């Protein structure tokens, strides 16, 4: 297998969201896609009781050289894939830098402090301006809404993966997506996931 080139080695991705959104599964799919390119993948994640309704992150390290720390050093993230808007800015505070790219799903998940009225959830316009200010490139996708049209909100995560492929920063492609997802799905479900992936690619290429 020929060696693929990475813009940085290790290339660091954080997939973030709220417990229950499907973060772990999304990181596994991206990891499996890249491991097919003969790259070294390390994924660090937290799950368990502490994540009930809490912020969750998966740290992906992609390297042609070796295995790296399952925790990305502060300020060293290259790409943030955020399944929830305010989680993107939380990640930027710890792991962002002026050159980071951000892909953000625009559907909020309200924290219980917001539900109870003790805290305010910002407007989407505010979140967009903050992320634009704190990143080199950013894309905002109404992935959950499009996924609801397809019949299942979880497909929003697949659109986000499609979008990550669409921005062209990494050797992610449709064939490796299909190969990775075929390990778990077949038939109609596979076709629906491929459709969601293509929609995700289109969402960033159309911008």
């Amino acid at each position, binding site marked *: 297998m020929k060696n693929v080139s990475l813009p940085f080695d290790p290339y660091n991705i954080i997939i973030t969201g709220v417990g229950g959104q499907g973060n772990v599964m999304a990181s596994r799919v991206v990891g499996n896609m890249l491991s097919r390119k003969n790259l070294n993948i390390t994924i660090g994640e937290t799950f368990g009781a502490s994540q009930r309704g809490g912020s969750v992150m998966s740290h992906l390290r992609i390297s042609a050289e070796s*295995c790296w720390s399952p925790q990305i050093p502060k300020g060293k993230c290259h790409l943030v894939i955020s399944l929830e808007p*305010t989680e993107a800015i939380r990640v930027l505070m710890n792991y962002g830098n002026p050159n980071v790219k951000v892909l953000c799903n625009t559907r909020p998940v309200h*924290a*219980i402090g917001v539900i109870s009225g003790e805290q305010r959830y910002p407007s989407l316009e505010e979140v967009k301006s903050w992320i634009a200010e704190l990143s080199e490139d950013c894309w905002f996708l109404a992935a959950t809404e499009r996924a609801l049209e397809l019949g299942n909100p979880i497909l929003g995560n697949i659109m986000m993966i499609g979008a990550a492929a669409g921005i062209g920063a990494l050797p992610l492609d449709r064939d490796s997506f299909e190969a990775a997802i075929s390990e778990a799905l077949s038939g109609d479900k596979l076709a629906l996931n491929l459709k969601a992936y293509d929609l995700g690619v289109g969402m960033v290429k159309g911008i």
Partner: protein
Amino acid sequence: MSIISLGREGERHLVMGNEAIARGALEAGVSVAAGYPGTPSSEIIETLAKVSTDQNLYVEWSVNEKVAMEVAAAASFAGLRSLCVMKQNGVNVGSDFLLHLALTGVRGGMVLVHCDDPGALSSANEGESRHFARMLELPLLEPGDFQEAKDMLKAAFELSEAIHNVVMVRSVTRLSHASGIVVFGELQPIEKKAFFKHSGFMLDPLEGPMASLPVPYRHEQQQKKLKQVTARFEESPFNFYNGPQAPELLLITSSACHLYSKEAIRLLGVGDRVGLLKLGTTWPLPPRLVEKYLGITDKILIVEEVIPFLEENVKILAAELASKIGPKAFFGKREGNIPTTNEMNPDLVAAAVSKILEVDYAAVPEAYAKRSQEVVVSGAPGRDMTFCAGCPHRASFWSIHNALKMDGREGFVCGDIGCYSLAVLPTGFSTLKTLHAMGSGVGLASGFGKLGQFGMNQPVLATVGDSTFFHAVLPALVNAIHHQSDITIVVLDNGGTAMTGFQPHPGLPVDAGGDEVPALDVAKICEAMGATVRISDPFDIGKTQQTIFELFEIKGLKVLVLKQMCALSPEKKAQKMFDVSVDKNICLGQSCGCNQLCTRIFKCPGLNWDKDNRVSRIDEVICVGCGVCTSICPSGAIQKKEVA
């Protein structure tokens, strides 16, 4: 079928640390595996259970960790290789047996994998299990990456059989619950025949009875084994050094801290000044190896998580070697360079190294750090932990909380370990007032319930999970009934060991491998013991509250079983019960006397406050359709419709 058994020699796969450990056990020819679920260890037994049929294994979720150790030891006594798996707390539970087992030794290789949780990411403590190795005088291995997580299992089984004693392998959350590329080794078919030889001479370790007597003799034999281990560890491939021949600073580390240290050296660009000694065999330490590397520098930084285990052990050797190697400057936890609580990360190592070497390091430009912090403060509301949407615990604690408030005697609930531990927080209406180990709520309640003679008249309750009931509640329950303690035990029966991923327990008709087994009935057990027992559905809030009141009036030990499946159970996920909606015309919003009861107090994540229309609404992505909120709304604005 799983890649863990299908993967062939030489193939590379992206697997979790726990899956790598399971594969290592398979490559070593394990026959029996037993454990109790606990994050971050659960996937090891789960992975082995999935392949138990095609690999001819016996795999069980034991009732608790002590029994798991006993089950694994029985296999070893009968000549098979056995694995025992648990989180850090489990070693405490099993340590009584383990202390005796360390004296009798084992026959077939027996490996104890214990997974610590520095930072308590999924625990109620960050207790260390490495110390058990020193206390029990058993060898300890710590994998430093994913490949080693697999390879060490094989080495551990070989070592165990060489010394005929248990070998401990300690993982941490950041390895067990992280994933990396692992190159698989060979799966060798081995012939398995179980037979327990017990007719030999009393002191014959291989054919005599397995008993720890006479203790001084057995103890001496055990310590001789540990000497052999030390000699083997001198040559172990799991200990290695990277760096210059005479570094200014030597880092000594193990486990996930190996990866953090490697990263920190790279971040600071000090690879020509700093050496890294990574140890995989951390008890007993190999003295000649340590001597060699202490000799190449005068400054040593020891990088590890939580308690200074490695640090103290290295310092003991350094003191013994002082006349040969001269004085050294040690940095680490005692010096204050490395924190003694919480988990480590690359930045904490970088901070320690940059301070010692006086190298400047800033992760991001100051202006960026400042601005991003401002944005988070103003724009990212914090996320408190909460029960999931549709969680039966929210409904159960709603009823318990309300019953206690209406009773008015400042009654309280003693809790223990499970998702329901969250009831110390507002998500459970801050109902739990004590939180300790598995089963401790019932033990404490048993004690509180006997304080009537000193004037205590507060109602005392304890909440326990269905898996916890079998794990550690039973002895406390026997105690409470026998001593006629006046308390109410609420069993939150959500149909599985939900917190750790829904593993089966003795109350269910299925075992780890999916085979049919007899289920033990919690209510019948309690009745047979003499308790007053009631059963209710926590989603029926009216009946549940009424039942709790009735139980307060009855003397002695009462048990209320609240039965409702976990919202994350496969059954519940497959089928939504109700479509729930808020009728905007009925919801009075802030004008209602309820003071926004549903979003302000009940606050299920499936409910939202619609700022624009000033009414409640349902978030259709998050709501799972349990319908409980319909019965708390005083004006009947929240409505449910059965899903066809």
